């Protein structure tokens, strides 16, 4: 069974540029999460979906970040007008919708904003 797939693995931008990250979750997983992991820190939840619906986006910097999951399968996280403070690894994870379900993480997309 294929795991969570993310692309691109790496991105380097100048401040003010935009970038999109793509995630393909494990087949059959209805819940999808986007986490931001700054260097040497723990993952911090940005947004998560159940099917195509946003369940919680309270930690998503909505002025520059957006995330969609239009068909309840793949998802895209977009950063517009990137800032140096956005430098981090962006992790996608998926799980079944149940209590204490295991999260399966992708390898992440490492973003550097110069």
């Amino acid at each position, binding site marked *: 069974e294929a795991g*969570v797939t993310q692309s691109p693995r790496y991105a380097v931008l100048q401040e003010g540029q935009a970038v999109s990250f793509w995630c393909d979750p494990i087949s059959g997983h209805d*819940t999808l999460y986007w986490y931001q992991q700054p260097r*040497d*820190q*723990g*993952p*911090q*939840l940005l947004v*998560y979906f*159940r099917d195509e619906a946003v*369940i*919680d986006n309270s930690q998503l910097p909505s002025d520059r970040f957006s995330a969609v999951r239009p068909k309840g399968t793949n998802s895209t996280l977009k950063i517009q007008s990137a800032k140096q403070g956005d430098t981090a690894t962006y*992790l996608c*994870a998926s*799980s079944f*919708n*149940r*209590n*204490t*379900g*295991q*999260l399966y*993480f*992708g*390898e*992440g997309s490492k973003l550097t904003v110069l």
Partner: protein
Amino acid sequence: QQQVRQSPQSLTVWEGETAILNCSYENSAFDYFPWYQQFPGEGPALLISILSVSNKKEDGRFTIFFNKREKKLSLHIADSQPGDSATYFCAASAPTGGNNKLTFGQGTVLSVIP
């Protein structure tokens, strides 16, 4: 506000020793505590987890000890191996309608010297 705290930030042990990683939390509603292991360049992967109704959980060389009254838990890695060298994250979630919204600590970097 850091709801999940880990100590120490880094830990070095000799091969064969027991490594002890500590975690504390603030939210009394947390009832599920997974530990995730992360190697460089990879996403975190579930190692072992415990529910707040238990005070101990074992899985091979890995044991979680949980103290609900003090809001503390620890991960013990017995007979540490060089392959255990990784970053370990303590995480927590509350039972909110079936959603597995995890809050992660800052991580402990474990180095096992042969």
